[in-house]
């Protein structure tokens, strides 16, 4: 699936919920399905700054596609990073660099999360794209 298709799928899923509680319960569920980062990569260099909770992200490239793993000490944050990883993992670096992230508005994440958390979200996207830029440079 392309990034665009995965985003549309997520927007569809979230549109089924009537209220914030269902939406958050679903995010908590998604958090539990997050592909967890190997403990050896849970180091300070892999922490994303700008989040009130700790978020670690690690990336590897296999067959020109990037696979992300992550973890967080807060469960809702884990849900958010799980959504981002579902969108970006297994994609070509160029596709990740070019992807827009408007779907976040559509599923009400940006609107419903506090400003500091929203900043965390922005930092997370930035970090995932930075990995893509780094790997794209290798390909070039």
């Amino acid at each position, binding site marked *: 699936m392309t990034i665009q298709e995965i985003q549309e799928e997520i927007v569809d899923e979230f549109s089924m919920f009537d209220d914030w509680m269902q939406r958050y319960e679903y995010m908590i569920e998604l958090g539990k399905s997050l592909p967890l980062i190997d403990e050896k990569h849970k180091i300070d260099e892999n922490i994303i700054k700008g989040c009130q*909770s700790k978020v670690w992200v690690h990336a590897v490239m296999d067959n020109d596609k990037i696979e992300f793993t992550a973890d967080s000490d807060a469960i809702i944050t884990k849900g958010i990073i799980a959504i981002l990883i579902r969108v970006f993992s297994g994609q070509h670096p160029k596709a990740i660099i070019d992807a827009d992230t408007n779907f976040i508005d559509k599923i009400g994440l940006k609107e419903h999360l506090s400003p500091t958390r929203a900043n965390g979200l922005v930092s997370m996207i930035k970090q995932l794209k930075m990995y893509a830029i780094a790997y794209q440079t290798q390909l070039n």
Partner: protein
Amino acid sequence: MQKEIDMLDVQKIREDFPILKRKVNGSPLVYFDNAATSQTPQIVIDAIVEYYSNYNANIHRGVHTLSQEATDAYEIARKKVQQHFNAKYSHEIILTSGATHSINIVATGFSNLLSKGDEIIVSALEHHSNIVPWQMLCERTGAILKVIPMNEEGELRMDIYDQLLCDKTKLVFTNHISNALGTINPIEKIIEKAHAVGASVLIDGAQSCPHIKPDVQALDVDFYVASAHKLCGPTGVGVLYGKENWLNSLPPYQGGGEMIDQVTFEKTTYAGLPHKFEAGTPDICGGIAFGVALDYMNTIGFDAIADYENELLDYGTAKLLEIEGLKIYGTSKNKTSVISFNIENIHPYDVGTILDKMGVAVRTGHHCAQPIMDFYQIPGTIRASFSFYNTKEEIDILVKAVKKAKMMLS
């Protein structure tokens, strides 16, 4: 009988605060982030509107009527602040942009008064704003920073403070009340003991001023700082109280208009107090509104406020402790209406996010006091801080919301 007269009519008081009528995420707002900033009564909002509608002008220099009216109102506000803190002179009251600005005026001013090897003592309960300026001062001067540690209850270890004090101690800094835990520090003893070794003392009153009316002369404190926005006043305004002789001996913090006596390209002489520390156009409107906010709080009365807030603290503590797995940090008998807590195995940030969805505003995180969080080895806490306009019914809503968050997040 006296008690009845002093009793506070919270429903009537709530009418004074327009923001308390609003809804957040579809639920009535329950505002429990008072330790970060207090809400603003209509009378203060009116004073701000009145200033910009009627007599907005620059102060201390115009000969025209508006400028005179603005100057008079600003100086009346300074006198109100003087009376509130019981300073000896109104020129001992420097109006600043907030407690952080006030602390920096003193920390910078001491750069030339300290030598290598001098010691300054700070408490372990400090807000970053009362740690970083002193670390910077130490870097500039070669002075050494010593720390009064805390115990498990969140109280300062006064026995260790006694050991730290010596003839090298030049300055002691502590907050009156901890913003993260609510502990009331024994500042009378801290000041007395510091003076006994010839050290001067700065007290950060940012958290205490909403609850306690300090008497700077009775305390015999050298410097006392506070912020208007925690006292029902506007943001961007604060106060530095300093004893006259101290303020005279410190150099100006910023150069500019208003703070000068004579300027030539060869030499400038500085204005007297308080203008020496008030370079540039101040927040005139904010200063005036701060005076109105102090009047408002004094009309309610700080004794009545303290009694009522203690009642809220006891009620909130008992109710929250009924929740299994909930732990309160800061359990001193001497504390104000701040409850810092966590729920076992749940990140404070997750709880704060869910509470917000239910209209309950709390603070989560390290509360700009990372050393305290390090002491307890936690990433942060959920902090509910109550003010005199909060109610027990709102605490019930908080407790219900915490239970729901716990259920969702477990």
